């Protein structure tokens, strides 16, 4: 059989499709298991052989989980606050820094950019202790500040992403704006930013997901239980009352994951466009 045979090509495509579906299914297993467990009675959560379908669906697991957590809505508010501030901070600061690294000429610019990129190679645990010490000096431990203030100082990855996007825009546009009467900041605000919405959206979404899921940061810096974020709050199921209430933990986990999924569902098109654009256009 020849490879350019239409029948062979159809078969090849079907095989590829099947592979993709199988892989997608594989990735969905933990998610499905989480949802299934969240609806089971406690004694079925660890039963062997494993049951995919609960013998009876317990919707009240969700209300129980919320009640058990105690501060659930408080956690939601805390998480939203941190997410909002970090998204705002990262987007604004990274865009500004990326603008400076791409659309303004200055001596040593590209060398400094390399230094910025190099900081990405430093693993977080290396700087964890010194940074903790710094925040302690500032008396920020036990507040939200360590979680959101650094976001206003631009992250190297986001700067890199936006810089690539900015480099793809023609310089003529900035020059036209300069002659039209824009200052550098006005060019940034009126011309460059509106043209970079897809890339900004990618940065915002990445940051939102990171802050929403972040466990280590809140664990390090938050001391009062009522200040916890959702990711940290989930941990409280594990040690309470001896064993772990798996069905409640999974119910709460589902609640935590759900907003991110919904968000991605509605923004995936521009999200993927943004990533594609930052990668290839230049």
């Amino acid at each position: 059989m020849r490879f350019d045979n239409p029948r062979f090509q159809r078969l090849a495509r079907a095989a590829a499709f099947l592979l993709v579906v199988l892989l997608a299914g594989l990735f969905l297993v933990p998610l499905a298991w989480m949802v299934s467990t969240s609806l089971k009675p406690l004694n079925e959560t660890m039963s062997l052989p494993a049951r995919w379908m609960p013998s009876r669906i317990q919707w009240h697991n969700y209300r129980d989980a919320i009640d058990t957590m105690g501060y659930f809505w408080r956690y939601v508010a805390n998480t939203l606050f941190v997410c909002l501030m970090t998204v705002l901070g990262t987007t604004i600061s990274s865009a500004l820094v990326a603008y400076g690294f791409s659309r303004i000429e200055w001596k040593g610019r590209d060398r400094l950019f390399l230094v910025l990129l190099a900081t990405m190679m430093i693993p977080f645990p290396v700087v964890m202790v010194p940074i903790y010490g710094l925040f302690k000096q500032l008396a920020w431990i036990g507040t939200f500040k360590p979680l959101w203030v650094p976001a206003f100082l631009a992250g190297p990855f986001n700067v890199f992403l936006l810089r690539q996007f900015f480099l793809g825009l023609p310089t003529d546009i900035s020059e036209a704006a300069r002659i039209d009467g824009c200052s550098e900041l006005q060019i940034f605000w009126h011309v460059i930013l509106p043209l970079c919405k897809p890339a900004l959206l990618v940065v915002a979404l990445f940051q939102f997901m990171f802050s929403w899921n972040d466990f280590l940061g809140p664990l390090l810096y938050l001391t009062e239980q009522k200040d916890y974020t959702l990711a940290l709050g989930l941990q409280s199921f594990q040690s309470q009352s001896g064993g772990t209430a798996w069905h409640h933990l999974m119910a709460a986990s589902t609640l935590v994951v759900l907003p991110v999924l919904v968000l991605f569902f509605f923004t995936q098109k521009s999200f993927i466009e943004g990533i594609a654009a930052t990668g290839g256009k230049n």
Partner: protein
Amino acid sequence: MAKVSLRNVCKIYAGERGKDVTAVDDFNLEVADREFVVFVGPSGCGKSTTLRMIAGLEEISRGEVAIGDRRVNDVPPKDRDIAMVFQNYALYPHMSVYDNLAFGLKLRKYARAEIKKRVTDAAQLLGIEDLLQRRPKALSGGQRQRVALGRAIVRQPKVFLFDEPLSNLDAKMRVQMRTEIIKLHQRLQSTMIYVTHDQVEAMTMGDRIVVMKDGLIQQIDTPLNVYHHPANLFVAGFLGSPPMNLVGGRLAATPGGVIFKEKDGGTIQCRLAGYPQAEALADKEVVLGIRPEHLSVGAGAEPGMDRGFQAIVDVVEQTGAETSIYLQTRSSFLIARGDANLGNRDIGHRFTFEIDTEKVHLFDAVTTRRIER
């Protein structure tokens, strides 16, 4: 009143390994109020750089630029009272045509009614009233360039700067926009400086042409003067299509004037009248410049000393209104141009051609400068 003065302007870039690159060298020009000046030259000759220095988009390394009577070296572009049209239009893709035109006025805090009036007037002038609500993406190249023109017009600047504005348009649209810009200049009566590498645009649009090469001005004059009295070999070869025929040779002095003899045993010879300094020119190495329209198929001239020479016809190009004949002598390739009747010469055959010796040019082979009659 807005004249533009450039005095000893230089642009020097820091090159690799500390070597400086001079992009524009000692540029001197006075553009009169309401004048249309065209900078022309091959790419890399510094014409755009000079324009960008006038606009304030490039720093001036040395020298002085003045708009009106004000030195503007350190004035930011927005305060120079200029407007610029770019080759790639440089429209704001996220704004409608109306907003593109209005943007500069909004930044300058004009009243809303005034903005509306100016935008509508400009749109009417350019015939783009129907496009005001569209985005640039939805426009053709010609329409985009009109919007770019409109963005310059609404500002009512003292000086318009054009950086190869027609290069991205197709041939037909280019001719159309060319005449529109000429009309615009007549209507607005403002000072315009126009950069192009297209010699037809240079010849047809400018009150004066500045021919540039390697950062240096070669000649500044009216289009016809530049065409008929090119200052040097470069200008002679650059302007004109088909280009001027250039034949290297040597001069000999005779009582009746100088005689040009092609070098390397070439067959082109002619007697040139009107060079009073014939004695001084004797035995000088020169380049003879003959415009294609000053070569004709000999109407009886004998090949030899005077003005005729024999050549084989290589190619005949007929465009309807005129004919170009590509000819070959033993050592040169030449082009002759004439009206349609010139045509129908048999390809591969030998004919006698005649040089209009009154209209040829002589250039010094060493300095490349034209030798005055």
